């Protein structure tokens, strides 16, 4: 195996699921494999350009692939379907609370949701996340702060009404 292919393979093994999770959280599972596959094809072609750590770069590429290939309304519908499965999937103790958080997340704008997901689920630093969305770390912090406030508000509303799983997608769209 050449240096390039071993470097690429270890990058793939390290980041693939993170990229996949990001795409799923943006546009659902239907398109995820395809977008991930294209993202890594680009990464191979441009391997010399891929920095260390690679994850923010890969997420940035995946974001572009998603934007260029999957229309906004398709993303929204696919994510709607995805949210249904998230809500139905678990029967944990804290299911009610989890549902209210997910429901609140679903009510936010795509931009807010992306920022929160990069922070909470991808656990990126503001600097790395800013890189992914293409703004300055300072601007990202401001946007995160606002998105967090809106999430909080949406969660308060969601807590008072009992989460109704079935209506999740209807209420969201």
């Amino acid at each position: 195996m050449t240096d390039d292919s071993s470097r690429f393979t270890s990058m793939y093994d390290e980041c693939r699921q993170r990229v996949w999770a990001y795409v799923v959280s943006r546009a659902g599972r239907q398109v995820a494999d395809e977008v991930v596959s294209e993202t890594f094809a680009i990464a191979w072609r441009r391997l010399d350009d891929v920095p260390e750590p690679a994850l923010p770069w890969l997420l940035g590429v995946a974001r572009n692939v998603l934007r260029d290939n999957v229309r906004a309304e398709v993303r929204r519908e696919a994510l709607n379907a995805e949210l249904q499965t998230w809500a139905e999937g678990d029967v944990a103790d804290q299911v009610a609370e989890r549902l209210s958080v997910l429901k609140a997340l679903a009510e936010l704008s795509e931009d807010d949701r992306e920022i929160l997901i990069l922070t909470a689920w991808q656990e990126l630093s503001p600097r790395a996340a800013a890189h992914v969305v293409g703004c300055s770390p300072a601007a990202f912090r401001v946007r995160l702060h606002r998105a967090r406030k809106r999430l909080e508000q949406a969660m308060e509303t969601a807590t008072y009404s009992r989460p109704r799983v079935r209506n999740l997608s209807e209420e969201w769209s």
Partner: protein
Amino acid sequence: MNPIDQLRAARPAHLGDTPVDERTRAAELSYAMAQTRPPVRAKRKIARPVWGLSLAGAAAAVTAVAVAVSGAGGMTPRAPSSSQAAPSRTVQPKQVKLSARAVLLAAAHQAARQPDTTGAYWHTVSVRRSLWNVEGADYTVMDRQRTEGWTPAATGRGQEQWRRTQSLGAQPATPEDEAAWKQAGSPTEISVLTHRKPGDTLALPTTPGKAKVSHDALFEGDKVFWLGRNVTMKDLRGLPSEPGKLKAWLLRSYEGHGTESSGSPMSSDAWLFAVTTGLIMEMPATPQVRGAAFRMLADLKSIKVIDNVTDAEGRTGTAVTLDVRSKIRVTDKGDSGILQSRLIFDEATGQALASESVVVKPGGYQADFAPGTMWDSQVVLEAGWTDDKPA
């Protein structure tokens, strides 16, 4: 509980770090690695590499896309000082009177008349200059990178492409910049903004660095250049010498997007211009093919010709130009900048002198530079066949 923590706790289990299944992994890896990668970039990027800068520090950063190499010590011609090299950063040449087409056809005629030679290695020496804004200070430096390359005529076992690269150091771009640099205590290492991402910087030394030599087996055993796709020396030497056929040959690799990223749309004229600039600048095409390349450019509607242009080495030539949009990322909202891509050549021989990017409308990577600023240039100092061994 903090809403971010609550959100973290609510992450669906399948979005955690579960391993990818083996079949998907195998399929995705083989799909990715089946993609062809350019072994040698025919054309440096019009925009500065978006991500390449973090590769291996300053030296690698500025050559991220360079083909080849540079000399050390006595073999390396001294780089001209910045004041000689770039007498003025803003270039305001006049439009030529002869029609653009006529000028290019004349160059085509001259190019096709040059003798065709060959040798053991195609050897090139070029210097790339790029402008950078200094972090936290109001001045600009020009970084210089020398690149020398050897590409074997032969293919087969043991044949290698060689490159030698050397940073020639960064210098204040103008006398005003020099004054500002002195005021800042004449630092020998200057931290500049990359614009790759906000706040990202790169440390450029002001003195020449060590030359780095590398050599690699030919890509896929025989591919040596990139012309929209990877080509062998034989492919290159056998290109069609009729402009229409050459254009068709090249356009077979055009997919509607730029030469660097499948995500950025690019017109076929801009794409052809970028690929043809690489062909004319850096590759040992036959004189007839070089002639055809100029004729093909003459027929592009969006080109212009500018007479009496001085390249970064102070040599005078004629430029064929095309305006391209400049964005840091395809998805960037807001206005993109406009850069003028120039191929500067000697009308008497059709020999390329340099390719440059000049700011027409600030934006993208060039947001901080005034219209007329030469933002990036690559001059060809040598391009010819040699029987001498590399490095």
